[in-house]
């Protein structure tokens, strides 16, 4: 399915998902990278050592969720924009998603935006909580969006133009 549509299957996602126990503990990266391509900035950028150094540059990321603190530095550094941080402990009813965002204008904190799933369909609305865009992220902003907890594992993008002035 991924190779036909660009949307990973449930099985694909199962392979990269941290355990339920880890997800319940708070912010953690989900590395939605399913194809061996020559690429390693996730590992070289991880300050926690949670993404192990690559032996072969074509390896898939070797990720230890136990070491991850959800800092999202990898989110801004992944050239494939394939990493997300999910915090399912954010509040009683909501989760926080940190996603890479390279569109202008950046959404404004406090605004409500349409949130999209991996297939680009709007599945709800979320609230922009924070937008990180420091120089070291090199124009890949990390947007923190608060979404209903039930959508935490589906929301991966924001509706473009939802925030257009």
């Amino acid at each position, binding site marked *: 399915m991924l190779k036909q549509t660009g949307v990973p299957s449930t099985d694909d996602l199962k392979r990269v998902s941290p355990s339920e126990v880890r997800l319940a503990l708070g912010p953690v990266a989900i590395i939605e990278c399913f194809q061996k391509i020559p690429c390693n900035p996730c590992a070289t950028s991880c300050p926690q050592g949670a993404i192990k150094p690559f032996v072969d540059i074509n390896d898939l990321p070797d990720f230890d969720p136990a070491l991850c603190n959800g800092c999202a530095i990898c989110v801004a550094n992944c050239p494939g924009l394939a990493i997300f941080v999910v915090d399912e402990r954010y509040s009683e009813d909501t989760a926080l998603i940190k996603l890479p965002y*390279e569109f202008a*204008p950046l959404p404004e904190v406090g605004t409500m935006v349409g949130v999209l799933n991996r297939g680009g369909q709007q599945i709800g609305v979320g609230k922009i909580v924070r937008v990180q865009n420091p120089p070291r992220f090199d124009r890949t902003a990390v947007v923190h969006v608060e979404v209903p907890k039930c959508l935490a594992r589906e929301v991966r993008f924001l509706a473009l133009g939802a925030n257009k002035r």
Partner: protein
Amino acid sequence: MRINEHPILKFERGKRIKFSYNGQELEGYENETIAAALHAAGIKELSKSAVLHRPRGFFCAIGTCSSCLMVVDGVPNVRVCVEPLVEGMVVETQQGRGELGGAV
């Protein structure tokens, strides 16, 4: 249409300059190609093909495909996708192959 807001790039455009296109006065920027300036003005048709007189636009934008030939300052077969725009240039739609006149 020109891009004014971009997440990655900042466009530093040169001086605004005037040129003529089939007798009509248009504006573009210094340091852009003739094709870019025409496109920004909404003009996609650059010439008519030699045999069937079909409209032609640019295709490759790197000067290799010969789809964008126009008459510039009287000289035919100018690859406008790589030719820089100059103030006061006279740009005209090319009909067919174009002939070399005195202004070579």
